């Protein structure tokens, strides 16, 4: 654990940045702040995660172990606050339950299949029909703020797995440019407007980049990111669907174990790599790892 000394858990920054986005949305973009939804999302996620981990370890976890069990789920909870909308408190609660439970139910080789909050959001929308996403909520003037914060995240965390984000972003932007500017002949500001929604950057650097739910091997990761970009682009442009990024991320998740089978590599664990990635949501590392980490 010597190397670990200088680097700080990137998830810490991630929570802070998500909180900044949320407060920016509420106070600056004047979202109809749904405080009950925020409280339930955070409280529910923590509660379910605590219960699940306590059951799994057959003991009550202590508050000072929060780093081990609570951080990742807090990131998921913040994603629910930022993205999901609903009029009903019990739907917020259901979303937190689905988010947490997906990590325990859908598992292959010690890796959960779905990005927890993406799964929670998609499943809640699909099954209840009473929740929605607002792709337009960030507007088009926020790109600078988002860019700055994203850059900050990258610098701060000295990313290792930026490859997923960049492969995705370049493919997606390239396809959009090809379609909107080259094929259809829209002026360039039309294309820029498509890119400048906060949702795209948020997805790129805070969701698809999750090292716990992307393939382990670098080549597989890049292929996977390109695949998501192509599928999301196709559905958005030719099938006129909204929020395709998050839907495709969830639908493509079962391919990850397949990629892992073809391209063999080590599984990512939070805190074990010298320079961990900034992105995504991890989960509780296996028990034996917890014990080792406690030694520092």
């Amino acid at each position, binding site marked *: 654990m010597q190397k*670990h*000394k200088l680097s*700080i*858990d990137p998830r*810490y*920054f991630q929570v*802070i940045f998500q*909180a*900044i986005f949320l*407060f*920016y949305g509420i*106070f*600056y*973009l*004047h979202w*109809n702040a749904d405080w009950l939804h925020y409280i339930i999302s955070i409280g529910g996620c923590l509660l379910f995660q605590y219960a699940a981990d306590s059951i799994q370890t057959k003991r009550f976890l202590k508050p000072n172990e929060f780093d081990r069990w609570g951080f990742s789920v807090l990131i998921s909870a913040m994603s629910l606050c930022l993205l999901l*909308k*609903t*009029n009903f408190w019990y739907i917020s609660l259901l979303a937190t339950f689905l988010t947490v439970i997906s990590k325990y139910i859908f598992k292959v080789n010690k890796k959960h299949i779905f990005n927890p909050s993406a799964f929670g959001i998609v499943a809640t929308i699909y099954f209840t*029909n*009473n*929740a*929605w996403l*607002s*792709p*337009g*909520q*960030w*507007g*088009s*003037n926020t790109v600078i703020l988002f860019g700055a914060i994203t850059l900050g995240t990258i610098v701060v965390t000295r990313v290792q797995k930026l490859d997923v984000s960049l492969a995705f972003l370049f493919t997606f932007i390239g396809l959009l440019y090809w379609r*909107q500017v080259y*094929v*259809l*002949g*829209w*002026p360039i*500001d*039309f294309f*820029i*407007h*498509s890119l400048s*929604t906060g949702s795209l950057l948020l997805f790129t650097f805070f969701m698809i980049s999750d090292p716990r739910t992307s393939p382990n091997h670098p080549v597989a990761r890049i292929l996977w990111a390109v695949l998501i970009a192509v599928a999301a682009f196709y559905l958005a442009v030719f*099938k*006129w669907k*909204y929020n395709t990024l998050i839907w495709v991320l969830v639908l493509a998740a079962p391919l990850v174990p397949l990629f892992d089978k073809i391209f063999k590599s080590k599984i990512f664990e939070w805190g074990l790599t010298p320079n961990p990635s900034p992105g995504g949501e991890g989960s509780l590392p296996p028990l034996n790892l917890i014990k080792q980490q406690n030694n*520092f």
Partner: protein
Amino acid sequence: MKPILKKGSALIIFAAMLTHEAAAFCGFYVSKADGTLKNKTSQVIIVRDGNRNVITMYNDFKGNLKDFAMVVPVPVVLQKKDIKVVEQQIFTTLNEYSKPRLVEYYDQNPCNKYEDETQKSLSGKVPGITIRGMASMKAENKDLGVKIEAKYLVGEYDILILSAKESTGLKTWLEENGYKIPAGADEVLEPYIKSNLKFFVVKVNEAEKKKLPGDFLRPIQINFSSPKFMLPIRLGMANADGDQDMIVYAFTKKGRIEATNYRTVSLPTAKNIPLFVKNNFENFYANLFQNQWSKEGKAIAMLEYAWDVSPKNFVKCDPCVSTAPSTQDLVQAGVWWVNRDWNDYTDVDQQEEDYSDNVYFTRLHIRYNRKSFPQDLQFQTTPNTENYQARYIVTHPATGDFSCEAGKKYLKQLKERRTDELEMLTYLTGKNYSDWDVVGENVEEKFIPTEASYNSVASIVAKTPGKENGILYTTLGVLGLISFVGLRQRNKKQ
């Protein structure tokens, strides 16, 4: 008051829309001959469920009717049965019902003991809208490649449905047939053509028009299926340098609609504003809209009203400023699923999952220009059924003798309240007390002591600093502090 928006009520040209692909459908007004076409406020009713769209476009065109022409991109070649002419009244009904409203409350004199529950509501008016001239421009001649897909006479309108191979050809065709194309239309015609859109070209049939009373144009309603839920405003923006307004009245089964490629913002509502605003609510609202629109960065859709207007819902507004739309009105507006004839299933979409007669109404107000709106408006239906109305409150002070103890307390509170009202006025409209010149006309001011008059309260109201930014900076500061402390803790641990 300097009504910044009241630059004369010019012409309203309109362009309406819909779409498919990257396309859309707010058309542009083209003038036949050299009539000068001025400005635009468009009103559009969109009814949407599944992939089915019914769009009604209203032109408040005030020029010579024979000069009127409109081009709207549509995703499919419309059949004659899909095009209808409806009565203009429906737009008046919807506008009156859903426009921002002013509510009046009356204080009671605490020194009098009788109860007086007077409360009435007053209708506000939709503000006058800035109106700009529309430039016309000549095009170069080239190959055409324009095909007339269909030709109909519907009501007083001659309708052509064109498809084109390239924009110059389309432009030339229109010009040769006597339509004036606005400058800037080029940049969007090409993408629309490549997206395989058809062009719905409308002009007035003079012979048919003469058979009808009045010199106005009735709204046109079209009905088609397309997965894309949008309004092509880009074509209507050919006039590059002015702001144009559009009111969208939307009906869905599920809930509110919102823009997906622009922010949807609800106006600050249920605010107490000074009594003198009552005399000029129209101007107040015009300023409020302009101010909030600028503050929010312009590239937004403003929510003005959202309510469940299902036949089974009895509370259709609170307070109501006019009668809520009846089932007949809804049918007229194109809401095909209310009052459905269950003996005739031709109207029922196979894919329709929800056979209820729920109707949810959303009113959006969009002020757009070329710079802030590079893309056509796209919408989505959400399950959000929370009611919303833009509502502002004025309160009449009590009158009479205030010499009792409670009366003195009341005067003190009145002063405080009026201070808040003036601050709210500035916050909402960006204008100060001194910008309003209608105060003196308010008779009621004479019946209360001078110290509680707006005039004297105004002198103590300092210019309010940006409250909201304060909150934002405080939040960021607190977050920064938490991060800092957290980091130090962690470093210590390690």
